[in-house]
């Protein structure tokens, strides 16, 4: 192929079109960047290497894209890798138009041997995806999107024109083909920032900047004795998104994975994270050109969220999808609109420091009081203290039995109040502040805390840390048990009969990243352990998260969806590591058990180990 000749007029036209396309692209991108810049806080650059590595895995290797939807994910990966390979090709392509090619003929020829197969992959990939989107029409993708159709056509034609251009063509035909290819690319540039395809540009950044901790909501500092103007500013700022949240809105690819995994949605509720937490905010943000849009989130949907972070975990472009914290705190702190059952809950927490309004806890009194010479503060949590499911109290006792056997000492705090998780997750940051400040004082002499409740662990260990320095470490009891087994301080025999499975609590697996230790403990006691579907960090929430344990009117059957999966696993025993999951399993399994089948036994990890201690 001899170098083509472009007349001056052609070059001027090309320059003109390119400038318009680049200009339009830049304008739309900058417009959005400008809005993102208005967001609160700043983009994080800490743990730089880890962030870069994460981009490598999730962008280059397409880890999350493939994981939840393997086949479409792989198809998308083909298209993506094709794009990467085409980078050089495109630069070369335009260079030919303006001046001369970058690659020499031999390089061009050699490179095309790589590119052409990729072009075929891309065509295969994009046609599979188009088939899925337009013929299969999965619910998660929503309405037919004309833009997606256009993009599919563009990509196919681009690949075809490339391949065609590598064949032996007359100069005239080659030129026509070249122009088609160029105009499509410029049209693409025009389309990208105005559609979800902006993720091409934004996703790598969004993934880079994503928090390492989930959930990651801005702390709400309240000082009742403080300046009233400061309080006013703080309340006004509650409607504003952070920079990360704003970037999320523009990065969303509308794939619907978040909705697919949402337990509230799957239980028949109205919550649809894709729309309620992300898409609904897009127009307000663009129209208002500002980030103060959090009050636009659908309130009813917001109350249904279990805060389990499945949506955040699954998002392939790094969005922190869940925004129940944001809308709930607006409803509570600014509007004073709180469902009645939660008003009672808040009053109980304020008046008595626990969720039940109880004046004492005989259960707590049955344990030794903590003194600084003891190894651990045994943090009980309201669930155990006030017998929200009295059967679980036995599990707590089983854990202390394990500690006794291992020779570890422990005591309960004399004045333990609710860790504040329900107040925190429901948006009552004022009550949360009261409880947190009280508990921080109680824990001032403490070095090590162990608790059976992951919700308590998340708050004591991570959330409290957002408001001030914490001087103690928090461990979940499964971590302690795991370590005691490793250190040989307790010996467990495989005495468990029947098939055993494990339900990962969302607070434990996703928020605390504790997945292996419970399994280590279970597999020390049982030789017949089998994973459930959606386990580990992909776990399906039991339905009690987000303080929904206390919600009276259950519109959906969120708490039964996971119970159904337990039944389907045909396990004889389901083990869990959270008191709420324990309670939910106990309530949810019996209605779901088919007639004639034995009820599935529910155990905590502590029960499984204590029952099989040597």
């Amino acid at each position, binding site marked *: 192929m001899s170098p083509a000749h472009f007349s001056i007029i052609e070059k001027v036209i090309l320059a003109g079109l390119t400038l318009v396309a680049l200009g339009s692209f830049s304008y739309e991108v900058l417009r959005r960047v400008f809005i993102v810049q208005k967001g609160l806080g700043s983009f994080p650059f800490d743990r730089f290497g880890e962030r870069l590595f994460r981009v490598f895995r999730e962008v280059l290797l397409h880890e999350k894209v493939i994981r939840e939807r393997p086949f479409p994910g792989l198809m998308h990966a083909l298209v993506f890798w094709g794009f990467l390979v085409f980078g050089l090709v495109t630069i070369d392509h335009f260079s030919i138009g303006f001046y001369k090619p970058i690659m020499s003929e031999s390089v061009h020829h050699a490179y095309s041997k790589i590119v052409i197969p990729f072009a075929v992959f891309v065509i295969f990939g994009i046609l599979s995806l188009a088939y899925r989107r337009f013929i299969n029409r999965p619910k998660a993708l929503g309405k037919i999107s004309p833009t997606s159709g256009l993009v599919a056509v563009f990509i196919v034609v681009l690949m075809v024109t490339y391949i065609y251009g590598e064949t032996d063509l007359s100069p005239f035909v080659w030129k026509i083909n070249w122009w088609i290819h160029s105009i499509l690319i410029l049209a693409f540039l025009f389309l990208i920032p105005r559609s979800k395809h902006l993720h091409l540009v934004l996703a790598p950044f969004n993934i880079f900047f994503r928090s390492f901790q989930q959930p990651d909501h801005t702390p709400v500092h309240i000082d009742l004795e403080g300046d009233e103007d400061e309080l006013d500013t703080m309340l006004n700022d509650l409607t504003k998104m952070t920079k990360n949240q704003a970037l999320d809105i523009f990065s969303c690819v509308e794939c619907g994975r978040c909705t697919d995994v949402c337990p509230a949605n799957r239980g028949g509720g109205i919550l649809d994270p894709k729309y309620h937490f992300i898409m609904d905010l897009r127009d307000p943000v663009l129209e208002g050109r500002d980030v103060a849009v959090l009050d636009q989130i659908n309130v009813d949907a917001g109350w249904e969220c279990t805060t389990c972070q499945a949506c955040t975990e699954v998002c392939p472009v790094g969005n922190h999808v869940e925004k129940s914290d944001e809308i709930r705190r607006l409803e509570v702190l600014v509007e004073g609109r709180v469902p009645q059952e939660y008003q009672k809950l808040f009053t109980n927490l304020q008046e008595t420091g626990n969720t039940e309004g109880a004046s004492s806890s005989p259960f707590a009194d049955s344990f030794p009081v903590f003194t600084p010479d003891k190894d651990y503060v045994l943090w009980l949590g309201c669930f155990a203290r006030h*017998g*929200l*499911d009295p059967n679980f109290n036995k599990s707590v006792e089983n854990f202390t039995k394990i500690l006794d056997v291992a020779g570890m000492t422990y005591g309960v705090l004399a004045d333990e109040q609710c860790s504040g998780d329900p107040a925190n997750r429901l948006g009552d940051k004022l009550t949360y502040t009261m409880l947190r400040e009280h508990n921080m004082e109680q824990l001032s002499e403490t070095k090590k805390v162990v608790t059976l409740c992951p919700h308590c662990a998340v708050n004591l260990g991570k959330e409290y840390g957002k408001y001030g320095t914490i001087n103690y470490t928090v461990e979940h009891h499964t971590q302690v048990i795991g370590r005691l087994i490793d250190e040989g301080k307790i010996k467990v025999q495989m005495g468990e009969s029947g098939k055993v499975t494990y339900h990962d609590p969302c607070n434990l697996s996703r928020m605390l990243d504790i997945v292996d230790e419970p399994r280590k403990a279970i597999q020390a006691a049982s030789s017949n352990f089998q994973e459930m579907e959606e386990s580990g960090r992909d776990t399906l929430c039991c339905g009690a998260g987000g303080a929904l344990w206390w*919600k*009276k009117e*259950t519109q959906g*059957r969120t708490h039964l969806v996971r119970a159904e999966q337990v039944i389907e696993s045909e396990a004889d025993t389901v083990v869990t590591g959270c008191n709420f999951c324990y309670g939910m399993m106990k*309530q949810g399994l*019996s*209605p779901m058990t088919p007639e004639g089948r034995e009820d599935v036994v529910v155990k905590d990890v502590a029960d499984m180990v204590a029952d099989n201690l040597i």
Partner: protein
Amino acid sequence: MDILVILEDNRGSLHRMSKEAIAGAQKMGGSISALAIGSNADALAEELSGVDLVEVITVSHDLVSSYNADGYSEVVKQVIESESPQTIVIGHSYQTRDFMPRVSAKLDIPFIPDIISMDDGIVKQVLNAKLNASCSTSAEQMILSFQSAAFSDEDMASGSCTSRTFDSNLDSATVRAESEEPFQEAAGDVDLEAAELLVSIGRGIEKEENIQIAFDLAKALGAEVSASRPVVDSGWVEPFRQVGSSGQNVSPKLYFSLGISGAIQHVVGMKGSKNILAINKDPDAPIFEIADYAVVGDVLEIVPKLIEALHN
């Protein structure tokens, strides 16, 4: 007179609580008269012609032909002033709450309400019925109202009594309310917490098809239907019927549980019920620990027969 019992007109006939009040007064002893007000006063007096009372005083002034607080309280005041009863007794109904305190204020006579027993002093419930209180008064006269079923209308002693009219002095300016006709509302979402009688369904009902017998029983008793969580979760009844820690908290006069085992999450929502009648196949069901009446049997067998018996 010793005791004046104020009667209530329940759409033309004597309100059950008025009969209970008479029985209570009779138990207290002394000379007892009754007061009937309104357009049906004579009919009420007629109903009591065979009861052991001194007499029934009737007032049928135009301004009190139907109930209103202004008129009734003024009439009662005048009768009390004229007859000087030592004790004024009445059933603690919604109507009593509406006008009797007016009488108390007009005459500065203390009103001890919602009494559950007169056996050992004047006893009423306090602190959400968690404790009982023994009350007393230093005044010469007192007004007492009795809680529903503190006494039994069946204990009204028979005898005979006459009636006489009382001319009350009522000024049209006294009666300020414009009352419309009472009406019933279409059943919407039921407020279980307000229901007096509940028939509650548990897993012992076994299948969705059997739910209807619970509703039929409820209808026969004039009760509302509630359920335990598993029944709601199975989708057999609406969520608002759920009783328990994550449902409604109820304390009806009668909690009639059908096939409910008595799991703690359920019990915390109904243990305040005044009477618990439980049917369950399992003699060791935890519900029997808090039940007043424990029927060990099959719900599916007993309930249809019970419905039939109630219809006879």
